[in-house]
């Protein structure tokens, strides 16, 4: 069967590695391999370190796809493999500290296993790791190559830029790394990060070599001559990479996040009227999920993920909150939970008023938050008043944005008389004329149909199940 190249649509983020590219075929995620990469994959699938990593879920499930050979040959490739689909993609600037640290540790541990078997990862991009629920998984099987004698680890600089320095930024300086990674897709360069070190930082593990010296050498301009060959002829060996990788693992493992104080991690337990509403909200969310049966739910402002866990009984959930300490706590809790539903929840640091934009080459390399997934249900529980008051958004625009997602919505309306809203308005001029229930109900017209309405015991709050009006 002769198929034209145009049948093969490569994923827009898969272009840097010319030896293998990811494409979708009939709803499946596949990878086209050139002859060299096809040979590597054939050998890898027989290597114990690789098959064990597959079994442990450290590497994405990968199987040969001989039925796609003719298809990929038409595009100049030699063979193909199939991967299990990651339910929802996420980017490092959406991860919390513990997620980035776990991703870094996975990369380093796989590297040690590969080195012991005579293989190496050609790069160390944080985009090579994705999360299935709260568990990291390595997805770029094409970056595994046989280790050549005297070869260095080409991904070392990338590891520092995309994993090590962002983690150090949070652990040493208490500065959120997400805006830094979102601002520069390649991560933080050593010559930039070394400029942030204080005298105290120089005594921290890894500061001298991985940061200061790295920054100094990179900042002095390019090194002349063929360094790779010089190191090879000077006796560079794989044991030296292994020594470096083990050292990096110790540094990463020892880092703890230094978060600024967050009021949100204990939000539910500290507010009595929020607590009293909880049982009614739980049963309302459960009943809505039972009716909608969402395969994907967005939980906006998820807090500790109470309602995400309910929705996860029915499908995948993206638990979204702008507060990193809260997402970090949710992530660590989910990892400990044995329930199958917990493994369907992907917690992400996401600000609804400023969601991740399309980024990278042509704005297609890393899709923005809005366009990456299509939920069937959106939980917007006690979040709209924050978007209006704190985010400064117009209520009509929020409802337009929710409507454009095409999903059912469970919205918790909070009146301006609510004690927490009064607290929010305490030092603000109340210019939020649209934050009224009658305005809200008027704005629903033409956008949503009210399927069900449930006033909450606290009296100042009310739940709505909204169905989008189409056509």
């Amino acid at each position, binding site marked *: 069967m002769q198929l034209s190249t145009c049948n093969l649509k490569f994923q827009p983020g898969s272009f840097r590695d010319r030896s293998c590219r990811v494409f979708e075929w009939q709803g499946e995620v596949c990878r086209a391999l050139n002859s060299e990469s096809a040979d590597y994959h054939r050998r890898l699938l027989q290597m114990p370190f690789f098959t064990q990593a597959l079994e442990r879920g450290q590497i994405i499930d990968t199987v040969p796809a001989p039925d796609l050979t003719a298809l990929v040959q038409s595009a100049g490739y030699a063979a193909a493999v199939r991967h299990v689909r990651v339910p929802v993609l996420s980017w490092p600037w959406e991860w919390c500290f513990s997620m980035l640290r776990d991703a870094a540790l996975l990369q380093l541990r796989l590297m040690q296993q590969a080195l012991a078997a005579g293989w190496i990862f050609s790069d160390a991009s944080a985009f090579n790791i994705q999360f299935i629920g709260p568990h990291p998984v390595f997805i770029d099987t094409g970056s595994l190559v046989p280790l050549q004698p005297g070869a260095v680890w080409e991904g070392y600089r990338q590891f520092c830029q995309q994993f090590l320095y962002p983690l150090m930024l949070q652990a040493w300086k208490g500065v959120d790394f997400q805006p830094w990674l979102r601002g520069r897709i390649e991560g933080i360069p050593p010559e930039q990060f070394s400029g942030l070190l204080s005298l105290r930082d120089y005594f921290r593990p890894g500061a001298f070599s991985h940061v200061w010296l790295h920054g100094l050498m990179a900042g002095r301009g*390019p090194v002349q001559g063929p360094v790779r060959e010089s190191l090879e002829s000077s006796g*560079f060996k794989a044991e*030296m990479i292994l020594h470096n990788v083990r050292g990096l693992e110790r540094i990463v493992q020892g880092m703890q996040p230094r978060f600024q104080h967050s009021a949100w991690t204990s939000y539910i337990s500290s507010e009595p009227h929020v607590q009293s509403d909880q049982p009614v909200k739980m049963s309302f969310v459960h009943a809505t999920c039972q009716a909608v049966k969402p395969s994907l739910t967005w939980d906006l402002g998820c807090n500790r993920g109470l309602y995400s866990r309910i929705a996860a009984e029915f499908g995948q959930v993206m638990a979204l909150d702008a507060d990193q300490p809260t997402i970090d706590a949710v992530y660590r809790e989910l990892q400990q939970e044995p329930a199958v539903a917990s493994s369907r929840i992907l917690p992400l640091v996401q600000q609804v008023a400023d969601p991740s934009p399309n980024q990278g080459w042509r704005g297609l390399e890393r899709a923005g938050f809005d366009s990456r997934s299509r939920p069937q249900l959106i939980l917007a529980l006690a979040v709209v008043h924050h978007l209006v008051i704190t985010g400064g958004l117009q209520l009509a625009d929020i409802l337009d944005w929710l409507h454009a997602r095409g999903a059912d919505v469970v919205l918790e309306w909070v009146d301006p008389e609510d004690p927490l809203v009064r607290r929010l308005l305490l030092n603000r001029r109340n210019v939020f004329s649209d934050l009224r229930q009658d305005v809200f109900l008027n704005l629903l017209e033409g956008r949503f149909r009210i399927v069900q309405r449930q006033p909450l015991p606290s009296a100042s709050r009310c739940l709505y199940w909204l169905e989008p009006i189409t056509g």
Partner: protein
Amino acid sequence: MSMLPVFAYLDPGASSLLLQAFVGGFAGLLVFARHFYRVFRYGRAPQPHTDGNQVCN
């Protein structure tokens, strides 16, 4: 290092490759030192032979 050729065509990641010897334990430090000894002695890192994978010593 004062008269560097056009920066844009050189690989700035080379310093990161070099640093790997430094962080590669005691044996790595010897490799690191050996590289710089050669740069000091010959003015730059040794060029590879053109007829194969061997490099100058």
